[in-house]
C-alpha cells in the first residue's frame, strides 16, 4: 500500500512523483453516503498516458452481487500484508467508513444488509459507460484485459466463449492475456484468438514440445500513445496445466518463466520502450515477488487472485494494480511519462455500482442479444435461499457448503470435495436461486461430478497438496486458488507449517470418528483434472438438490479449525 506521504517521498528521476490515488475522494463520498456517476468517474486527467484495466470478469455480462472474502490469509513475507487483510481491518487500513459504499464494494462484513442498500455491481454495459467516459478524457487510453474473461456462465459455456468475445470486441481492448480461456480446449482457443482484433499476449505461453514461444501468442506488443512508446508484456496464468486439465491444451506449456520475463523487459527497453506494462494473470503475491526480482517494469496490472485494492502497491520502482473480479471494478491508471521514463502515477479503482452508473445502450443491446437464445433457461427459478450464498474466502463459503451437500446427497457419498476456485457471484438471503445463479458458481468445461473411493491417507495427501498451493511461503509456488472445499469431513489446518504437517484431526463428521488412513471412503467431487472423468454435470447435481430442498438454509460451517500461528 502506498500512503500519500510515501507518494510525496518517492522520487523517480529528476522530478518528484506527482501521483496520488483517487482514494481520498472516495473516502469523502463514503462519509456522505451519496454516490453519483460523476463522483465515481471523477478524475483529474494526469500525465500523458491512461491505462484501463479489467480482469477476471468470468463471463459476468449482467450486474451481480459479489461478497469479498472475510478470510484471506497471507503467509511468509506476505503475512498481514495487503491483499491479506479483510473486513474491518481492511477498512481501518484504508480509512473506509463502516457502512459506506466502499465498505460494501471492497470488504466483507454486513454484506447481506449493505447489498440491499447499494445494489448489484458490475455489468458489462456499465463497464462500457466507464470505459467510454475515460476515453472521452483520453481518447487514446489503452484498455487491457487480464483474462479469465471467456469462462464462468451458462451463455459462455454454451457459446464456447463467443458471447464474451463479441461483447469484449465491442469494448475494443488493446490486448489480453489468459487463464480459464484454455479450458475451452486448444482448438477453440486458437479459433477465437485468431479472430481477435487485438493482441493476445503471454511471454510465458510456450510450445510444450519445443519449449519455445508460440506463434499464436506474442510475448509483448508496442503501442504509441500520448507520444510515448509503450510496451505491454503479457503474463498468462503460470500453472494452467497443473491447476486445470492439461489434456485440454497439451500443446502448451506455461510456468512463471522469470528469466524470460526479464529478457523481454530488456528486449523492449532496447527497442525504445519508455513505459513497460505487464498485463499479468500471476496472482497478486506472485506479481509482488516478480516486481522485486525483475527490474524495469513500471506497472503490473495484476489479475487471477481477484483482489481489489484502492491504491497501488509499490515494490521498488514498480506499481502493482489489483482490479478485482467479475466486472465489479475498472481501474484507471494515468501516467506521466517523459524523457523516456515514468515520472508519476495517478490511480483510481472505480467500483461499478450498477444502480449508479448508467448502462451503455449499445452494449446493453449487444449483451441481451447474446443472452436471448438462453433467456428461458437462465431465468428459471430452481429454489430459494434463506442464507446468503457466497464463495470467496480461503475456506468453505456457503455456496460451497450447498454444493458439497448436493454431492453428498445426490451422489450418495460420505465425503465431498469441491474446488477452491475464486469465481462465482453471491445470492442474498431471501432471494430466488435461478439456473443462472447455479451456473455462475459451477460452469466449466470439465464439470463432471465423479464418485470414487479414496483411502484416508490419500485424502490427507489431497488436502496437504492443495494447502501447499495456497500456503507455501514462497509465492512462486502458489497457484492462486483457495483451499479445496470439503463436505462430510472436518480438519484442523496450521497454515504456518510446511507441506505434510499442516492438516491434522481429520474427522468423519457423520460419525465423529477420526479418518482412518487405511480405510476407503466414498468421495464425490467435481472439476477433476483427469481425462475421462465420468459423472453428471455438477450444475445438474446442484439443481436437483435445490429442487428437492425448495428452500435452502445453511448452518454456519465449523468443520475447519484454523491455526494461523
Amino acid at each position: 500500500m502506498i500512503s500519500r506521504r510515501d507518494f510525496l517521498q518517492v522520487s523517480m528521476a529528476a522530478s518528484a512523483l506527482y501521483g496520488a490515488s483517487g482514494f481520498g475522494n472516495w473516502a469523502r463520498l463514503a462519509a456522505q453516503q451519496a454516490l453519483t456517476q460523476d463522483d465515481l468517474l471523477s478524475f483529474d486527467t494526469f500525465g500523458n498516458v491512461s491505462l484501463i484495466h479489467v480482469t477476471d470478469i468470468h463471463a459476468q455480462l449482467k450486474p451481480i452481487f459479489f461478497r469479498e472474502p472475510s478470510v484471506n490469509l497471507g503467509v511468509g513475507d506476505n503475512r498481514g500484508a495487503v491483499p491479506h487483510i479483510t473486513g474491518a481491518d481492511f477498512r481501518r487500513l484504508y480509512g473506509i467508513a463502516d457502512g459506506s459504499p466502499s465498505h460494501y464494494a471492497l470488504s466483507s462484513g454486513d454484506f447481506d444488509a449493505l447489498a440491499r442498500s447499494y445494489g448489484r455491481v458490475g455489468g458489462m454495459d456499465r463497464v462500457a459507460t466507464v470505459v467510454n467516459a475515460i476515453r472521452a478524457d483520453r481518447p487514446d487510453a489503452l484498455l487491457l484485459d487480464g483474462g479469465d474473461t471467456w469462462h464462468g456462465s451458462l451463455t459462455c459455456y454454451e457459446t464456447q466463449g463467443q458471447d464474451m468475445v463479441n461483447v469484449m470486441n465491442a469494448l475494443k481492448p488493446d490486448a489480453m492475456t489468459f487463464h480459464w480461456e484454455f479450458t475451452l480446449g486448444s482448438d477453440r482457443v486458437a479459433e477465437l484468438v485468431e479472430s481477435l482484433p487485438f493482441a493476445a499476449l503471454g511471454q510465458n505461453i510456450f510450445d510444450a514440445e519445443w519449449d519455445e514461444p508460440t506463434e499464436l501468442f506474442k510475448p509483448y506488443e508496442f503501442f504509441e500513445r500520448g507520444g510515448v512508446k509503450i510496451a505491454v508484456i503479457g503474463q498468462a496464468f503460470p500453472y494452467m496445466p497443473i491447476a486445470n486439465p492439461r489434456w485440454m491444451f497439451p500443446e502448451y506449456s506455461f510456468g512463471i518463466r522469470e528469466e524470460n520475463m526479464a529478457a523481454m523487459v530488456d528486449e523492449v527497453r532496447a527497442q525504445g520502450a519508455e513505459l513497460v506494462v505487464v498485463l499479468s494473470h500471476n496472482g497478486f503475491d506472485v506479481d509482488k515477488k516478480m516486481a522485486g526480482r525483475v527490474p524495469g517494469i513500471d506497472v503490473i496490472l495484476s489479475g487471477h487472485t481477484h483482489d481489489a485494492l484502492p491504491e497501488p502497491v509499490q515494490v521498488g520502482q514498480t506499481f502493482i494494480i489489483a482490479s478485482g473480479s467479475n466486472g465489479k471494478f475498472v481501474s484507471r491508471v494515468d501516467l506521466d511519462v517523459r524523457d523516456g521514463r515514468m515520472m508519476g502515477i495517478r490511480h483510481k479503482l472505480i467500483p461499478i455500482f450498477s444502480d449508479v452508473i448508467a448502462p451503455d445502450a449499445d452494449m446493453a443491446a449487444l449483451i441481451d442479444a447474446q443472452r436471448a437464445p438462453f433467456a428461458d433457461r437462465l431465468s428459471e427459478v430452481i429454489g430459494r435461499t434463506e442464507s446468503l450464498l457466497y464463495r470467496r474466502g480461503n475456506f468453505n463459503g456457503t455456496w460451497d457448503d450447498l454444493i458439497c451437500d448436493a454431492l453428498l446427497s445426490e451422489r450418495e457419498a460420505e465425503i465431498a470435495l469441491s474446488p477452491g476456485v475464486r469465481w462465482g457471484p453471491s445470492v442474498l438471503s431471501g432471494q430466488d436461486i435461478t439456473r443462472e445463479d447455479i451456473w455462475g458458481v459451477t460452469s466449466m468445461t470439465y464439470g463432471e461430478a465423479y464418485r470414487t473411493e479414496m483411502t484416508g491417507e490419500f485424502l490427507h495427501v489431497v488436502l496437504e497438496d492443495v494447502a501447499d498451493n495456497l500456503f507455501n511461503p514462497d509465492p512462486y509456488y502458489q497457484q492462486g486458488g483457495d483451499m479445496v472445499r470439503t463436505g462430510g469431513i472436518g480438519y484442523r489446518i496450521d497454515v504456518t507449517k510446511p507441506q505434510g504437517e499442516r492438516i491434522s484431526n481429520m474427522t468423519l463428521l457423520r460419525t465423529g470418528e477420526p479418518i482412518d488412513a487405511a480405510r476407503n471412503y466414498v468421495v464425490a467431487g467435481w472439476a477433476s483434472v483427469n481425462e475421462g472423468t465420468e459423472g453428471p454435470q455438477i450444475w445438474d447435481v446442484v439443481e436437483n438438490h435445490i429442487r428437492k430442498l425448495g428452500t435452502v438454509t445453511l448452518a454456519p460451517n465449523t468443520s475447519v479449525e484454523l491455526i494461523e500461528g
Partner: protein
Amino acid sequence: MTFSRREVLALGLGAAALTVLPAGAHAATSDELIAAFTGGAPMAETGVTITAPEIAENGNTVPIEVAAPGAVSIMVLATGNPVPPVATFNFGPLAAEQMAATRIRLMRTQDLVAVAKMADGSFARATANVKVTIGGCGG
C-alpha cells in the same frame, strides 16, 4: 530412438558430448556422487545456473537447462529420485557455449543439483527446487 531438438542441438555443438548415465546400477547418495565428482573440493555458489519450472507441469517429463560459462563438465542430480544421477554433460574446447537442456523424470518434489567443473579445476554448484503436485483446484 528419438531425440528432442534440444538434445540434437546439444550433440550438434560438435565438441559437446552428452553422457546419459545408466539407471538402476546402484543408488549412491547425492552427497557421495558430488564428492566423487569434485574429489571433495569446495564449490562456489555462483558460476552455474539451473533453469527449471518451480512446479512441474508433468513430473514424467520436466524440461531443465543447465549453463556454466567456462565449464568442462556439468553433473546434474535429481536428489529425490531413487537413482539421483540424471546426466553429466562434457564440453570440449570447441563448444560454443557450456549449456545443455534435456527433460527429466522426477518422482516427487525435490531439489535438483548441478555441479560444474570449470576449466581451471574449480567447482560451482546450484540447486533448484521443483515441486511435483497432484494438481487441480486452481482459481
